[in-house]
């Protein structure tokens, strides 16, 4: 432990930037300059600590030691840069650099309101995220975890319309329930438990688990288990573990840089990171394995099994839900939900290889998902298109963007040579090495790879291999679950009926409209997903009810499907503001643009760099620092060199680490 101010400086850099950003609110260039400068400084500070941390030094700053102020009785407000902390801080601060360029391009491209508040909150979020990374004990991480919930709220509610407000409410409710209730309760319980034994009370993280907690768990096993699940639930909210995930999809109303860096990297990863802290440095794999939970009918299982089951369920279910999302950002959000569960699943398998895989998946997913979100944002800014069904042939218009999207999607599916492959590979080795019932988790990982392809390939396919006026139906999106009895590749009339979602009011509405003649471009957003239009119709008293009734009765066979699609429409077709009516290809089809002219460099350069990063991480993980850091973390947890870890049987490893 070396006392050093740098962990604090890395946290405070962007907090100082907030003041400067607000102060220069009249001069946008200067304001964005502060963002970039803060990002670079933050990254520089983190990198300056990296070599020493790799050599085993831990930098530490504590409020009590430096000022004499005690935060709470017996609890210090302390930051420390250890391998796990620097791992997350490095990722967040590195990606912030490019995101600040991208955000400038995005917000200006859309002429968004309240940009100062946006950039200030963004800087604050990064402060809180790095604070979470460097937090040295449970109370400190709680402080930053709550602050992160708080400062990201203005970003979610940014649009200031009813939809954004509702999403913001939901966001606050979920994250504060996770932080203020579950996490705080868990922290208090850990403090109480460790005060029961002679080593405590303590809340400081220790690689391999707190000794005091291990001793206390022998005294009060039931409360130790309860505290474990409270902590996991607290962090699981941000990690979007089901059933606590639904805030994430709603939070997609935020501007895309927010969805990208915060709701795919900083915020959600802080949840996954917190789970890593709890599993590796609060309880420790050995204690989790040895604290059996007595399940009636099954017998005793380790505490990790319920977590792994939830994670496995989440990653499968979220992938399936993602397939039916037409709004691109929402599909990406469900993909995030699924991918975060990879991390949680890998951690909860407790095997060293699985943990390395899970940790490496944090940057692997971050790079790939950030690419995907950046692409979605670029498409939104340039063409105002948000819905996958309107993207047929968009590859012509945005060649570089869609190529980068393809790379990101391949990374999500875990295809070599993208980074996602490496992490999944390690996780599969880990799961296979334990064997037994853990094969089920390996199976879930493999199944999810297939599902990933199933929901990302259609996007790539429709962008590059279809054209505006000729494209196939999207059976998963448009048809009832289980499929239609008829073939969907018949006449275009049938297709139009199905594509409308089959809601009677819509059909009649469209038919009555004057432009019903131009059936050729029925793919237009307005015609196809007239959600605003739908509400108008439903509300309109002029709509003759008997007409509706006849419409419905003639199409009795589709009743179920109608209802269902209506509900999908209600959820699915709310995206960014002002999209949607203007989305889709222009009248003459997408113009062909070269990669240099498809958007501004402010957006294209970050996309290209981050996508390249995802490939670099996949081709040479040994040379990119993250894999090495991940193995260091695991070595610290298990207390032996990584090479030996693979040879050791799992059971022995678990007893070894307890001692």
């Amino acid at each position, binding site marked *: 432990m070396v006392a050093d101010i740098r962990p604090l400086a890395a946290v405070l850099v962007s907090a100082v930037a907030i003041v400067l950003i607000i102060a220069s609110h009249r001069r946008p260039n200067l304001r964005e300059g502060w963002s970039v400068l803060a990002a670079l400084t933050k990254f520089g500070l983190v990198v300056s600590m990296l070599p020493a941390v790799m050599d085993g030094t831990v930098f530490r700053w504590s*409020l*009590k030691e430096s000022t004499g*102020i*005690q*935060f*709470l*009785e*017996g*609890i210090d*407000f302390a930051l420390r840069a250890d391998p796990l902390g620097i791992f997350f801080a490095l990722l967040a601060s590195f990606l912030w650099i490019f995101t600040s360029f991208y955000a400038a391009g995005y917000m200006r491209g859309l002429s968004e309101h309240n940009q100062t508040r946006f950039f200030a909150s963004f800087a604050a979020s990064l402060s809180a995220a790095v604070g979470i990374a460097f937090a040295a004990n449970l*109370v400190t991480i*709680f*402080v930053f975890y*709550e*602050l992160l919930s*708080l400062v990201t709220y*203005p970003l979610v*509610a940014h649009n*200031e319309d009813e939809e*954004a*407000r509702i999403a*913001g*409410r939901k966001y*606050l*409710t979920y994250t*504060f*329930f996770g932080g*203020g*209730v579950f996490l*705080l*309760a868990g922290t*208090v*319980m850990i*403090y*109480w438990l460790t*005060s029961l034994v002679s080593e405590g009370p303590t809340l400081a993280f220790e690689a391999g688990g707190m000794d005091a907690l291990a001793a206390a768990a022998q005294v009060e096993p039931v409360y130790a288990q309860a505290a474990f699940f409270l902590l996991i639930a607290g962090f699981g909210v941000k990690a979007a573990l089901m059933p606590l995930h639904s805030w994430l999809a709603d939070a997609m109303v935020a501007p895309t840089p927010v969805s990208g860096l915060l709701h795919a990297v900083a915020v959600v990863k802080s949840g996954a990171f917190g789970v890593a802290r709890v599993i590796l440095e609060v309880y420790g794999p050995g204690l989790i394995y040895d604290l059996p939970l007595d399940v009636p009918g099954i017998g005793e299982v380790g505490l990790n099994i319920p977590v792994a089951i939830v994670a496995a369920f989440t990653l499968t279910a979220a992938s399936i839900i993602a397939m039916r999302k037409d709004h691109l950002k929402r599909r990406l959000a469900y993909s995030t939900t699924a991918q975060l569960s990879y991390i949680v699943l890998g951690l909860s398998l407790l095997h060293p290889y699985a943990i390395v895989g899970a940790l490496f998946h944090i940057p692997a997913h971050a790079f790939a998902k950030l690419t995907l979100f950046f692409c979605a944002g670029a498409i939104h800014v340039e063409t105002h298109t948000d819905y996958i069904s309107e993207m047929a042939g968009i590859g012509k218009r945005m060649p570089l963007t869609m190529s980068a999207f393809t790379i990101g999607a391949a990374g999500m599916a875990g295809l070599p040579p993208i980074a996602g492959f490496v992490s999944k590979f390690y996780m599969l080795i880990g799961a296979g090495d334990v064997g037994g019932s853990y094969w089920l988790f390996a199976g879930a990982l493999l199944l999810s790879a297939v599902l990933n392809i199933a929901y990302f390939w259609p996007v790539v396919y429709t962008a590059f291999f279809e054209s505006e006026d000729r494209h196939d139906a999207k059976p998963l999106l448009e048809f009832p679950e289980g499929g239609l009895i008829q073939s969907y590749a018949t006449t275009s009339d049938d297709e139009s009926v199905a594509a409308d979602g089959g809601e009677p009011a819509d059909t009649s509405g469209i038919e009555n409209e004057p432009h019903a003649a131009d059936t050729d471009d029925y793919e237009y957003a307005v015609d196809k997903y007239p959600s605003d239009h739908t509400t108008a119709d439903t509300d309109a008293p002029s709509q003759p009810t008997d007409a509706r009734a006849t419409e419905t009765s003639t199409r009795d066979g589709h009743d179920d499907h109608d209802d269902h699609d209506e509900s999908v429409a209600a959820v699915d077709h709310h995206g960014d503001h002002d999209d949607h009516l203007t989305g889709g290809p222009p009248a003459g089809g997408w113009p062909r643009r070269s990669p240099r002219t498809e958007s501004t460099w402010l957006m294209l350069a970050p996309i290209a760099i981050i996508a390249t990063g995802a490939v670099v991480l996949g081709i040479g993980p040994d040379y990119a620092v993250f894999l090495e850091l991940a193995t260091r973390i695991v070595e610290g947890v298990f207390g032996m060199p990584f090479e030996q870890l693979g040879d050791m049987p799992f059971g022995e490893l678990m007893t070894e680490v307890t001692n």
Partner: protein
Amino acid sequence: MSSAELLLPLLIAAPLLAATLPIVLGLWTDRTGWPIAAVTTTGLFGAAVALASAVYTGTDAAPITHELGGYPRTYGIQLVADQFSILIALLVTAVATGVLVYTRQGGPRGNTFYTAYLLLTGGLLGITLTGDVFNLFVFLEITSIATYALVASGDGPESAVAALKYLILGTMAASMYLIGVAFLLMATGTLNMIELATAIPAAERPTLIRAGFGFIAVGFATKVAQWPLHTWQPSAYQQAPDGVTPLIAALVSTASAYAFGRLIVTVFGVDYLTTMPNAATIVLTIGCVSVLAGTALAVIQTEVKRMLAYSSVSQFGLVIAAYGVVIAGSSETAFIGAAIHLIGHGLLKAGLFLGAALVARSYGARTVDEYAGLAKARPVVAGAMAVLLLSLVGVPPGVGFVGKWYIALGAVQSELWPVAAVIFLSTMLTLAYAARLLEKMYFTPPAALDWPRTTEPVATDGGDTTVSIGMLAIVVIAAVGAVALGFAGGTIAGLLEPFLMEVFN
């Protein structure tokens, strides 16, 4: 007799005597009230600080006491400044000084107002510093009477009704307390707190003591505005003049809650109450139910002042619940939590009501809906109120979090799981109404129809709508203080340590 000891009677006597000055000088001029009050309260604050430094840095950690008139405490009146009471005295004098910054321009004006103001301050300091249970009743009454007058000084008949309601319930509560004290006197023959502490466990007729505790608990439950005895409080807070509400909301119930805590730990003694049947259960139930009921009622309010008033019901519920934990589990931690939450809540509510007064004055907004767009129109006051609200929710590092942490830790240490659950959930419940206001201020554009209001604000106080720098500054100071105190959790616990050693052993 040291100089610090002399400060004790001075702290109480000075404001009471100074209260007569505005009336006397009012014979010649109408503008003397504010300067007299300002000088007095500033002096009181300085005296409290001096006394606090004497108490906290004192070598033997013994409380500073003063026997009035030199009569020994067995039958005379003793004033006590120990580590617990001086904390509250600091809060009282600081808030009393701070609120004056608002009233200078914000009103209400007039010399009689400042007479009541100083009377109230003196009464509150009396409650804080007295070491005699009957004397406590006297000061409770002084405080209450001053408060009735202040509430009634609001415009319109609603204020009179609110004051009357408060008068009836407040008098009932004081009578309850007095009956309880009478029972104690019957059982023990003394009224001094220290004497009682030794006499109560030795009392021959514990039934009298139990009855006394029951009456006292009900009396204070009313004074502190615990559900279902809270009904006087929302209308009193709402109908009182804007400049008065911060003072009342921050201090009056706080002083009563302090007095209740004092009676629990010093007079009855934690050990004695632990063995008293049902005492812990009753106190815990009152507190927990108030937390839940208070928030439920706060969420459905449309008026901001009323909403904050119900919020006080639930926040004091936390304090009372903490007392319950102290009794049930002999938990020092919960007591630290209660003390910090008393201070923190007082500061937060003073800041919030000052902010609400400012908004009403300059923006003409009194209901939650009217707060729409406040962040754009009044960024500083909106920002300060946001910080105060979030601190109230318990977002760290705010003072609300520190209090909640200790109370929750105490509940968990005592393994009172339902209480712990209520305390953890209270974060969410507080968030429910705090977020409502935050969302209105920051993410709701003002309705088009309401816009003329900002250009031509509704006159609330004699048509004067200007906001002085001082008014703004005092709200900001409250917000900064709320965050700064968030880092003082360890410090305050350390300051209370000698007192806790005394009463818990």
